[in-house]
């Protein structure tokens, strides 16, 4: 019974969100507001159950094992001063603690995790002997491109970094280096874009497949929504000329 109801709700909400492709309408607005409510409730419950209860309330008020926890309790509670006009400045204490802690962690997180690793990965032989060997065994476009990979990495990353280097004017030979940097960035953005589109389309196929598998609720709710759209257009609640 609950499973069946769940399927009908899922179909309704999926169609309600897709109806935005037609134009902004009450079904979409309903789904949008429902999503905000459910998402907010979900994340708050998750934080309370997974962070606050085991790491703060349990040890501080249940087991009395760590009195130092009054400090994060205080810093957390002062955040709510943001709701007061007079004492809103106190909320900065909690925010400053969070920003300070994560800034300190970010220095070595980005330094060790990104900066050093990326620079180290780019220190490579200009000619990849394995790629050359593979090309001699089986000559082709891809095996040839693989030989070019290392030079492209070594020269390309320098060009890209130079594009972000503003202490010197990008003219003459330096302008060419910077231009190559832009081209490589554009290719990179294009690849990321194409990949993102394909990921989104995969999600769309998943939702469409869900609608096809559960075709009875999809057809019924779809027809009811179309009727509702016609009624709303006639009564003037939805302006058919207004585009999203």
């Amino acid at each position, binding site marked *: 019974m609950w499973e069946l*109801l769940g399927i009908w709700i899922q179909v309704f*909400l*999926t169609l309600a*969100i897709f109806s935005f492709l037609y134009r902004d309408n009450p079904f979409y607005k*309903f*789904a949008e507001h*429902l*999503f*905000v*409510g*459910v998402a907010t*409730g979900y994340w708050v419950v998750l*934080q*309370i159950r997974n*962070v*606050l209860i085991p790491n703060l309330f349990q040890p501080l008020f249940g087991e009395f094992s760590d009195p130092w*926890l009054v*400090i994060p309790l205080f*810093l*957390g509670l002062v*955040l*709510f001063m*943001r709701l007061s006009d007079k004492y809103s*400045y106190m909320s*900065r*204490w909690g*925010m*400053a603690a969070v920003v*300070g*802690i994560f*800034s*300190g*962690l970010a*220095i*070595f997180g*980005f330094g060790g995790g*990104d900066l050093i690793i*990326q620079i180290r990965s780019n220190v490579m032989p200009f000619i990849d002997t394995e790629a050359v060997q593979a090309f001699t065994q089986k000559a082709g*476009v891809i095996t040839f491109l693989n030989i070019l*990979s290392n030079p*492209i*990495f070594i020269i*390309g990353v320098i*060009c*890209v*970094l130079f*594009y*972000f280097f503003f202490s010197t004017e990008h003219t003459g030979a330096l302008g060419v280096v910077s231009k190559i*940097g832009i081209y490589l*960035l*554009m290719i990179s*953005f294009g*690849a990321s*874009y*194409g990949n993102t*589109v*394909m990921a989104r*389309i995969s*999600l769309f196929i998943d*939702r469409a497949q869900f609608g096809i598998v559960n075709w009875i609720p999809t057809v019924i709710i779809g027809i009811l929504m179309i009727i509702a759209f016609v009624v709303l257009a006639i009564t003037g609640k939805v302006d058919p000329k207004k585009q999203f």
Partner: protein
Amino acid sequence: MARRSIPTAIAFFFGAMMVVNYFVPWGWFSDRANQVQEWGLIVVAFAYILGALNVMRVHGHKIQRKEEDWRFSIVTIITMVVMLSFGLMPEHWAIGGMERGSPFLWMFDNMYVPMMATMYSLLAFFIASAAFRAFKVRSLEATLLAVTAVIVMIGAVPLGGILLPGSMELRTWIMETLQNVGKRGIMIGVALGAISTSLKIILGIERPYGRD
């Protein structure tokens, strides 16, 4: 003066503690620093609650003033309260807890998950229409972006391999080499920026937590 210096001092104290802990991971101090990291997560959890209260306040005002679409704000508040109530009820109650079969998880599975997936899939259409507008700009940069995107998209589907033989291998090469060149440059830049910004925050030169 104190209003300005207290947050700066707090940020400096906690930030410096994390930095010192990295260089001097000495037993007692290291334990305290790890504890402080947990404190950060606790304060963030309170920020989530503050966020929820703010959502409630904004939508409450909308309902009170009967602003445009105020009826939908009722939906937001009701679902949030219902979700919070189910989620925070003790496990031993019939409708409480977060286990499989609980109303909280039922709402999550049947409302949050499908809506999230649909919202993201909806973006495919908007990205496509945005790309159509962007690719109209006829320059070499835009052409490179468009051509790469098309090859990556074609190479991701089996039909692409039939229409354009070798597109799958070409896609793999683009993703592994050309995409990573740009990505690597950006990552190095972002890391340098993040490190310098973090240092500025710890030293009080920059105060993103607010200033008077």
